[in-house]
C-alpha cells in the first residue's frame, strides 16, 4: 500500500514479513536467542551504530547471555534478539519510508579481537549471499562501505551496509566495534585458548519492514513483459493455489469436492495456500488465464489445475508462475512433490 512515498504493509506484505523473520530465525541455528530490550536511547542512528556497546541495553543483554546460556558465553558466539522501535532506526532511504512501528532484528557476533576483521568480512559475505538467495534479483544486493565518524579509527571500527535496489535501500547494517577501554568491562573466554579476552562485537541490524519492502520491490521490478511478482518460493506468503476448469456444469459438485480435498491435503502438509475458499473455479480457458495473471501478480509460485479429466484418472496440471507452463502430475504425487519443491 503506497501513500506518497510512505509504504504500509498490508496483510499479504505482513505475511511475507513474517516469513522473512522466520528465515532470519533459522539462519545460524546455534545462536543464543535472547529477549529483546526496547530501544530507549535517543541518540542519532549513526552514533548509536557505534556506541551501542556502551548502552545499558547491551549490558543487560550480555548479562542475559551469561545467565541463560553460560555454555555459549565464549568467543566466538552469536546472540540474536528482536525488538520493536517506534522510530525507524536505520537511516532512511530515498525511495520510501515505512509506517511505524518497525521490528528490529539484531544479531550480535562476539568474536576474538585478533580475528575480528576476518570474521567481519566472512559475515559480510554470508549476509550478502543470504540476501541474494532471498531476492529475486541477486545482482541488486551490494555491499556498500560506510564512512566512519572521524573520531573512530578503522582497526577498531568498521561498518558496511547491505543495500538493495541499486544501492538505495539498506536491508542490513553490519558494524564492528572493538571493546576496550571505556566500552565496558565485558570479558569472555577465547574458544581456542581459553584466555579471557575483551571481545569485538559485530552487530547486524535488520529492519524487518524496510527489508520486506525492498524485497517486494525487487520482485516487481524485473523488466519482464509479463506482470508477475517474483517472490522467493520459500518466502511467498502463498505457495500454492488450486484452480479447476469447469467445462460442463454437470460435474461441478465433484470438482468442488476434489479441490476441497486437495486443499485439505496441502494444508495438512504444511503448505501455505491462498486464502478464502481456497480454490478458484474457471468457466473456460480464458477465465483460467485471467486467474493465472492475477495469481502471478500476487506472486503465487504454483497453481494446481484440476479438470474433468482429473476425476477420471487423477492426472492434473501443476502450473508454474515462472515458466507459465504446466506440468502433468498425478494426484498421488500430491503433496510430496510440492513439498520437495519448497524444501530448498
Amino acid at each position, binding site marked *: 500500500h503506497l501513500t506518497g512515498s510512505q509504504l504500509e504493509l498490508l496483510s499479504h506484505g505482513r505475511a511475507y514479513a513474517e516469513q522473512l523473520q522466520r528465515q532470519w530465525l533459522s539462519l545460524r541455528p546455534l545462536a543464543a536467542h535472547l529477549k529483546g530490550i526496547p530501544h530507549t536511547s535517543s541518540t542519532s542512528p549513526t552514533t548509536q551504530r557505534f556506541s551501542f556497546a556502551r548502552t545499558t541495553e547491551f549490558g543487560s543483554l550480555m548479562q542475559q547471555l551469561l545467565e541463560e546460556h553460560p555454555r555459549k558465553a565464549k568467543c566466538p558466539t552469536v546472540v540474536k534478539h528482536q525488538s520493536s522501535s517506534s522510530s525507524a532506526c536505520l537511516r532512511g532511504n530515498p525511495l520510501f519510508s515505512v509506517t511505524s512501528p518497525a521490528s528490529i532484528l539484531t544479531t550480535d557476533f562476539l568474536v576474538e579481537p585478533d580475528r575480528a576483521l576476518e570474521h567481519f568480512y566472512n559475515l559480510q559475505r554470508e549476509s550478502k549471499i543470504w540476501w541474494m538467495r532471498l531476492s529475486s534479483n541477486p545482482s541488486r544486493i551490494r555491499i556498500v562501505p560506510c564512512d566512519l565518524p572521524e573520531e573512530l579509527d578503522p582497526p577498531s571500527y568498521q561498518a558496511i551496509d547491505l543495500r538493495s535496489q541499486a544501492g538505495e535501500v539498506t536491508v542490513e547494517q553490519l558494524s564492528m566495534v572493538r571493546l576496550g577501554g571505556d566500552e565496558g568491562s565485558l570479558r569472555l573466554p577465547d574458544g581456542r585458548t581459553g584466555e579471557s579476552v575483551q571481545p569485538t562485537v559485530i552487530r547486524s541490524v535488520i529492519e524487518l519492514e524496510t527489508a520486506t519492502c525492498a524485497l517486494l520491490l525487487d520482485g516487481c521490478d524485473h523488466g519482464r513483459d509479463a506482470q508477475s511478482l517474483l517472490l522467493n518460493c520459500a518466502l511467498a506468503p502463498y505457495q500454492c493455489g488450486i484452480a479447476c476448469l469447469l467445462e460442463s456444469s454437470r460435474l461441478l459438485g465433484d470438482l468442488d*469436492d476434489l479441490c476441497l480435498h486437495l486443499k485439505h491435503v496441502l494444508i495438512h502438509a504444511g503448505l501455505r495456500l491462498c486464502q478464502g475458499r481456497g480454490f478458484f473455479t474457471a468457466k473456460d480457458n480464458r477465465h483460467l488465464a485471467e486467474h493465472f495473471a492475477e495469481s502471478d501478480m500476487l506472486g503465487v509460485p504454483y497453481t494446481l489445475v484440476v479438470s474433468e479429466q482429473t476425476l477420471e484418472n487423477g492426472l492434473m496440471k501443476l502450473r508454474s508462475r515462472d515458466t507459465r507452463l504446466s506440468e502433468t502430475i498425478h494426484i498421488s504425487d500430491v503433496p510430496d512433490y510440492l513439498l*520437495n519443491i519448497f524444501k530448498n
Partner: protein
Amino acid sequence: ASQASRERYASSSLKIYRRAKPLPKTTPQKPKQAELNEAGSQAEYAENLVKVQMISRNLHAQLFPQEPRTVSEQQLASAKAYQDELRRHGVDIESSTPQADVQLKLPPLRGANIEEHFHNIAREQVQPYEELLLPLVQCTELPKRPQRWAFFAGWTAYDPVDGTASPVDHPAEKGLVFDVEVCVNEGQAPVLATAVSTNRWYSWVSPKLTKHRLRVPSVEPLDGATDAERPHHTPDELIPLGASGPGLVVGHNVSYDRARLKEQYLIEDTGTRFVDTMSLHMCVSGVTSYQRAMLKSKKEPAPEDLAWLEQSSLNSLVEVHRLYCGGEPLSKEPRNIFVEGTLEQVRQSFQSLVNYCAGDVEATHRVLRVLYPLYAERFPHPASLAGMLEMGSAYLPVNSNWERYIREAQLTYEDLSIEAKYHLGRRAKEACSLLHDEKYRQNLWLWDEDWSVQELKMKQPPKRKPLARAEVPSNVGTTAEQRRLQAKFQHLYDQHCLLPARRPLLPGYPLWYRKLCRKPPPSRYKREAAEVLEEEEEDLWSPGATEISTGMQIAPKLLSLCWEGYPLHYERDQGWGFLVPFRSDSGGVERLPLEQLLERCPVPEFARQGAGQAESDLAMDLLSKQVEQHLGKREHYKKLSQKQQRLETQYQGSGVWCNKILEDCCFFLKLPHKNGPSFRVGNPLSRDFLDKFSQNVLSSGDPSCQEATRVVEIARMMSYWRNNRDRIMGQMVVWLDQQQLPAEIRGGKAQLRAYGAICPQVVACGTLTRRAMEPTWMTASNSRPDRLGSELRSMVQAPPGFKLVGADVDSQELWIASVLGDAYACGEHGATPLGWMTLSGSKANGSDMHSITAKAVGISRDHAKVINYARIYGAGQQFAETLLRQFNPTFSASEAKAKAMKMFAITKGKRVYSLREEFHDELEDRAYSSYEASRLAFQRNRTLGEVFHRPYWQGGTESAMFNRLEEIATQPQPQTPFLGGRLSRALEADGGAEQEQRFLPTRINWVVQSGAVDFLHLMLVSMRWLMGPHVRFCLSFHDELRYLVKEDLAPKAALAMHVTNLMTRSFCVSRIGLRDLPMSVAFFSSVEVDTVLRKECNMDCRTPSNPHGLRIGYGIEPGQSLSVAEAVEKAGGSDISKWNWIK
C-alpha cells in the same frame, strides 16, 4: 606517478627534481640558462651530438675512467647528418627536458674498466660454486652404487668401498648430484631421495615411508583457519641438507627437488645453489615451440629438418640423456609406482625404486659431464652461470593471508557462479513460455532448439481384476468431511499403479528445458518408495534448471547474445557464429525467423568503435608468446574468393566467412577465434573469448535483459580463477615452526600468524632465449578489478622486519634493440630516430615512438605500442595486420593491410639491394628494390645473391636497428651482444639459405630477448656485489626484479638497485663500443620498497575477491617508490664506497 598514467617505457619515466636543483623551463637555451643559474650543474651537465643528455660528469669519470669525453671534427660533421635524418622523421631534438644531475661516489671498479669489473665480480661470485661443480664434471667414474639401500628414516651414507650403511644428519660433501621421488597420490612431500658426491652415495627415506614417528609431533596450525582439505606442509617432512656455507646441488629440473629441501624455506639464505641440467640443455640445444611440436610429432621428418633434429631433443631426462650420452635408453617404468601407486606399494618395491632414483642421479651426472663443457664453451662469461644460479634460488615468503586469499577467492567464485546460474535459470524459465502458441518460432535465438513435449500417459487398466488399493496419504484430516472426500477420491489414488514405471521428467515442458533439470529423487513418488532413499541426493535436488551453467551451449542463446548486432547461432560443424540476412522475402524459409531477423538488422550498420585499454593490455601480456609461436611457421597468404570479396563489401565486421548459408536466406559467419580463422569458437562466454573482445561487440540483443550484461561480467570475473586456481591452490607452501623464524618475528603478536614460504618452480633458463620459466608466478596477471583472484602476487608478503625491494627495467627490450642500432649505425646514443625516441621522446609531448607511430598510421597509442613491440620481437607485417583487426574489429581486411603496410614503411623501412662490385660497370650503383633486383638478376641468368649483396633496410626509423639485428642473426655463429652467449645448436645448424630465412625472425627475436637475459644476469651479479649477503633474491619475471631485505637496509638496497641499473647499462654500451650512457636510462624511474610483491607500491589490488583492497581488507599500507635522489637521501648519502661489505 599515478598508477594509470605510468608507462613502462623510458621516455615517460623522466623525472625532474626541481625541488633540489631548479632548472629553467625554456628548453632551447637550457645549458646556457643552467650556466647562469648554477655553476655546479654546468659542471655536471653533458649532452651529446644529438642533444641527448648524458650521465653526469662525475659518474662518467667513475664508469669510463680511461675514456674522456671528446668530440672530433669528423664527429661534428656527421652530427649534422644525424640531426637532419632525425628531423626528417619528425623528431625535434630540442624538445627534450633535461634531468637533474646525480652525484654518487661508487665503489672503485674491480678492474681497469667496467667490462673487466663485471668479469671479475662475476668470477668471484661463481668461484665457490665452480669449485664444487667442476670436480663433479670431471669425475669420470662415480663411486659404486651400494648393493642394498638401507630402509632407515632420514639420510644414510654408504661407504664407497664396502657399502656399509651409516645414518647421518645430512651429506658431508657440499657438491651433490641429487634426485627426489614423490608419491603423487600421497601429496607433494618427498618420499625418498638419492644423492651422490665424488666420494660416496647417500639415500634419504621419509619417516612416513618407514612409519617412524616424526621427531617433533605436528602442531596444529596457529591461525586455526587453515583449510582442512588442503595439505599443511611443515619443514619436518622435507629433506635436510645442512645450512652451512656454499653448497651445490645438480639435478634435472632441479627446482622440483629444491622445493623439497628443508633449509630452502628458511628466511635466511643458506648459500646452497642449484645447477639445472635441463636449463643447461635449453641453453645449448633449446628449440622453438614450433620445433618442439615437430619433435613431438610422430611423422617422418622433412629432409631440411634433419640437421637440427640431430642437435636437439625434448627436455625430459630420458631425451636429454639420449641426445648427449646415447647408449641404452633410460627406463622410466618404475616411475609409475610413484605416479599411480600407494605408499605401501613403494614400501614393497623399495630396493628397486631407490635404484631407479639412483639411476636417474647417475644419468644426470653423465649428462652433466658432456653438457657442462659445451655450456661453458658457448657461454664464456662468468655472469651467465652466476645469473643462472641466482635465478634458481627464488623465494616467495607468505603468511596466513595466503590461506585467506585462497578461501576468499574460492568463496567469491562460488557466490558468483550461483549468481550466474540464478540468472540463467531465470532466463530459461522465462523462455519456457514461448511454448504457448509456438512463439519460439519467432525467437531469433531459440528457434532451433528442441521444443518437443512429452505427455504423461496412463497404462490401460486391467480388465478383470480391480486395481490394487493404494495407500492413503496418512491422516489427511480428522473431520468427517475430510474423511469423506478422501474416500470419495480414493479410486484416483488407486490409479497410481497405472502410471509408467519410469516417469517422464516434467511432462508438458520442452525438451531443451528438461535437459537442464535433474530428475527429482524417487521420494517424489512416495508409493514407489520401495527403493531406499539416499538422503544426500534428496537434499541436493531442487526444482528448475539447476544444471545450467555458463559453459553450456544454451547459455548464450538464453541471454540473447548478439555479435555486432546480429544474433548468435550455433552450428555443430562450425561452432559459434551469427546470422546475417541477405534476402528479404521469406518465401520458402521454414524454420528460421527471417522476418524478425530483418526487423532487427535490416541494414548492417557498424559502429566504428575500437577496442579499449583492456584488450591492448592483454595483447601486450601475450605478445612475446604469440610472436614466438608465430615465428618459424611459414607465413601463408590467404586468397580471397570472389564470393568472399563480395561479402566483404557488404559486411565489414570481424566475423569469419565460412561458406555457409542457412535456408537460402542468411549467411552464417563464424565468430573470430584468437588462434585464427580456421578455429571454432566453442563458447563465447569463455575467458579467451571474453578477454579478447570488448563488450561493445558482444552484447545482449534484448534490451530488457540486464542479466546478460551481468552474466557476461561474471563470466569475465570468474575466468582468471577458473584457469589458475588449480595451480595456485597446488602451490607447495611450507609453514615454518616458531623456532625456525628469526628472533624478530618470534613471540608477541606474531604468534597469531603463520609464516611460510613457496619455492617457485623456476626453470632458470626455460626457453630458447634463456628466459626463466615458471608455471604460476611468471605468468601471474596484474591485479584487475574484474578478475577474481588476480591479487595473487600481492599475497607474497615479506615477514615483519623485512621489505621487498625491486624495480622494473624501463622498456628494456626497446632500449636494447635501439642501442644496438645506434652503436652500429652511428656510434652515438640517440643518433637514429628509434634511438632518439627511446631515449628522449616523451609521451607528454607526443615525441615517443608509440605516439609517433600511432599518429602516422591513425590508430590509438596503446595499439601502436603493442604492434611496435611485436615488430621488434620479429613479427611480420601480416601479424601486425591480424593485431590491427583484432583491436578494431570493424577494420576491413584491406584497411588493416594498408595501415600495416604504412606502419612498416615508416618504421622498418624499405628492403633494398646494393650491387656487388663486379656489376658496377654495367649498372648504376644505387639501391634497388627487391622487384628490380630479382628482375636484373633474372635477366643476367644469375641468382639474386650473385648479383647483389645481402639486402638491407633503408629509410625507416628502425632500419638501422633491423640491419644490425639481421647482421648478428645471420652470422654462422650468432652471439648475444653483451655476454657473447651463443645461439642454441638447434637454430645454428647449417641448413643452407632457405633454412636461414626460415629461422631468421626467430634468430632476430633471440638477439633482443637473449640480450635482455644477459642484462638480467648482469643485474643479479651487480646486486650481489653491492649488497653481499644482505639481500635474498625473490623473483624476477620479464623485466622485473625483486629482493627480500631487512627493513633497515631497504633504502640501501633501493640505492643499490639504481646503481645496478647504471653499471649494467654502462657495461652493455661498453660492450658494443660506446663510451657513454644517456641520463634517461641510467637509473630506474623508481625502485619500489614494499611489503608485498605487487607491481607498483600504491596498487590497492581490489578485485572481486578482495573488494576492500589491500589497505582496508588486509591492513597493508602502500609502499614507497624511490627515485634515485630519494634513494640517496634515505640510504644516508651518496657515498656507496663506504658500505663496508662491498669487496
